[in-house]
């Protein structure tokens, strides 16, 4: 499985360095952070490095266009970024036009793969689900008329929609039967916890059923012949890769590692810059640089043994190096669990989770108790998700 960069604020040279280092192979760009001219330059820079480049039109955020505290950044400068009246979406009449504007924009930027727009699904049995299915139904046909590049339909949904269980699965019985399916899907799993920047805290995404649902989407869509790209996905990437994902995108801020629709509303109050962290594959966790030094002295096996480890040995590295280290680790981690044998990969990753839990337990015994419990809880959620997914996917 490939790792892509999820663009956010302040990319500086992270994307080009990530591509040059070979720790990412593509990027999902955000028109929220770039106006058209800058976007065009950025695409050219990345394409010159043989990157797979896509742009998420983020039309699901257009629901906040008239919101008093909207935080849409540059999105409002893009011509396509507007939604017709809801009644026109419900009837379906306006949908092809909306898709066409977004795809024409991407075509005019020279992108060779497109992400089609869609609405955000709050609940499995909502009218938005029907509208979203209409968008997906129309996606490929509109793409053909726009020049027929490979097109990913957006599937952005809240964790509440996934928690609907059977109702959530019903969506995919319908989705896999569309007459003219898109080439792939760009999946965003929406947290309700968007303002929680505490990296170590369990987010509501880290719920066994939510993770299982995300795995189920990847599995069902990939066995149906679709390519699957997951946005804002971080440590769940190996699970999604095991279930058939082609790529996962992740970025340098928590909002780029975990999607939340509420990020398009301005936060009240300030925050402090997040701490620089090291992604430890053996621990399946992002740990502070100081902890990395201390943990490694106790248990050397918590280090990945990869190229960027050395930078963490003495001092806290830059934000750019942190992003590169994360992508490097993720890429290495996912390569072990995306062989195409779903059952075998899940078994192997379950064993990896168990080993990570044991390492955390040993760290706790050695007196490093502060972050142990939330991490073990998070890992147990991943482990339990595998069981739920197996049940839903009718696998062994």
């Amino acid at each position, binding site marked *: 499985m490939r790792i892509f960069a999820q663009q956010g604020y302040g990319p500086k040279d992270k994307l080009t360095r990530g591509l040059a280092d070979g720790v990412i192979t593509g990027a999902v760009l955000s028109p929220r952070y770039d106006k058209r001219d800058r976007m065009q330059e950025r695409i050219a820079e990345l394409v010159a490095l043989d990157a797979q480049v896509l742009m998420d039109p983020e039309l699901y955020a257009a629901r906040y266009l008239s919101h008093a505290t909207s935080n849409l950044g540059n999105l409002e400068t893009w011509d396509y970024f507007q939604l017709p009246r809801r009644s026109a979406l419900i009837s379906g009449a306006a949908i092809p036009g909306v898709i066409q504007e977004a795809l024409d924009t991407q075509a005019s930027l020279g992108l060779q793969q497109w992400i089609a727009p869609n609405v955000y699904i709050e609940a499995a049995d909502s009218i938005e689900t029907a509208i979203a299915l209409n968008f997906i139904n129309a996606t490929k046909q509109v793409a053909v008329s726009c020049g027929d590049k490979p097109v990913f339909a957006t599937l952005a949904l809240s964790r509440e929609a996934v928690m609907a269980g059977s109702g959530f*699965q019903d969506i*995919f*019985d319908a*989705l*896999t*039967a569309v007459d003219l*399916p898109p080439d792939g899907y760009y999946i965003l799993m929406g947290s309700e916890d968007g303002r929680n920047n505490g990296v170590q805290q369990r987010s509501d995404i880290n719920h066994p059923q939510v993770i299982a649902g995300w795995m189920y989407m990847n599995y*069902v869509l990939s*066995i*149906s*012949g679709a390519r699957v790209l997951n946005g804002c996905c971080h440590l769940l990437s190996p699970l999604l890769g095991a279930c058939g994902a082609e790529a996962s995108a992740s970025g340098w801020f928590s909002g780029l590692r975990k999607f939340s629709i509420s990020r398009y509303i301005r936060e009240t109050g300030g925050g402090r810059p997040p701490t620089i962290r090291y992604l430890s594959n053996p621990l399946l966790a992002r740990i502070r640089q100081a902890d990395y030094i201390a943990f490694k002295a106790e248990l050397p096996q918590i280090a990945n043994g990869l190229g960027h480890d050395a930078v963490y040995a003495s001092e806290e590295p830059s934000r750019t190096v942190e992003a590169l280290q994360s992508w490097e680790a993720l890429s290495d981690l996912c390569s072990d669990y995306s062989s195409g044998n779903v059952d075998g990969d899940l078994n192997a990753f379950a064993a990896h989770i168990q080993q990570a839990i044991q390492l955390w337990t040993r760290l706790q015994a050695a007196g490093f108790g502060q972050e142990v419990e939330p991490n073990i809880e998070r890992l147990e959620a991943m482990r339990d998700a595998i069981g739920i997914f197996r049940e*839903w*996917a*009718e696998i062994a």
Partner: protein
Amino acid sequence: MPIPVPSVEGVQAALGLPEQPEHIGTGGFKAVYRMDTPYGPEAIKAVYVPPTGGEDEDALRDQLIARAEREIDALGRCESPCLVKLGSLPPQLYSIEGHDYLVYGEEFLPGESLDGWIGRDPKPSYDQLLAVFRSLIDLIRTLSGSGFVHRDIKPANVMDTGLKERPYVVLDLGIAFKMHGTELTQGGGPPRTLLYTAPELLKPNYKDAMDFRCDLYAAGLTVYVLAAGHHPFAQDPEHEYATAYRIMVQRPPALVELRSDLPPAFCAIIDRCIRKRQALRYARIDLVEDALQEVM
């Protein structure tokens, strides 16, 4: 409801046949006869049409005539070597021995239905199972391409003809469903053959879920039953609600566990066809064909 079955003499007289036909079976609202024609042997189907009378009787009569006519129309439009073809006798309403029947001809196929394979020793070979499955997939492709869902694929409806070019032929389109159109069944009720009914068709909103994947399920289950020698969900005797529950909930053993002599990849294809969730089956017929190509 048992129908009045016309005698062979009555059929011969009503149709003006030079020779007496042979009664070969009765099922549902149909009696079936074999007769020789200048084009070869044909199966004559006489569909019972209730008399006119009250409102209900008239409605049933109209429905049965319409259903038979649509089945005939569908057979005429779905060209597949794996589906029985229409014969030389065009559909026409006849009065036979005081009752009305819609009578029409289909080709007569030699051989026996695959029901006879279930539980036999030795069990069907891989080559036989593969040929049956490929025939059914070919038929499903044709039907779905014409907008139909068969809804009644099962061993009893598949003839083992012994013909080299058409070894396995499906006989009946009697409960087929026209997608985006009028259904062929009487009243549009749920399908009547429970044992091979896909789980989604047992739900109240079954019409929303109906597509070729229902037939894919039945085709996979047909091959599974032939291979295993028994039905994975049925117990005899039991109430049909118990069977329906198992169809909806119980996962069958992987086929390879029952037939270790079969290629695991082939077993995996059959297992996937009979997944409970439609989304877990093949989303397109060409994906099944690609998978089969890899096995072969």
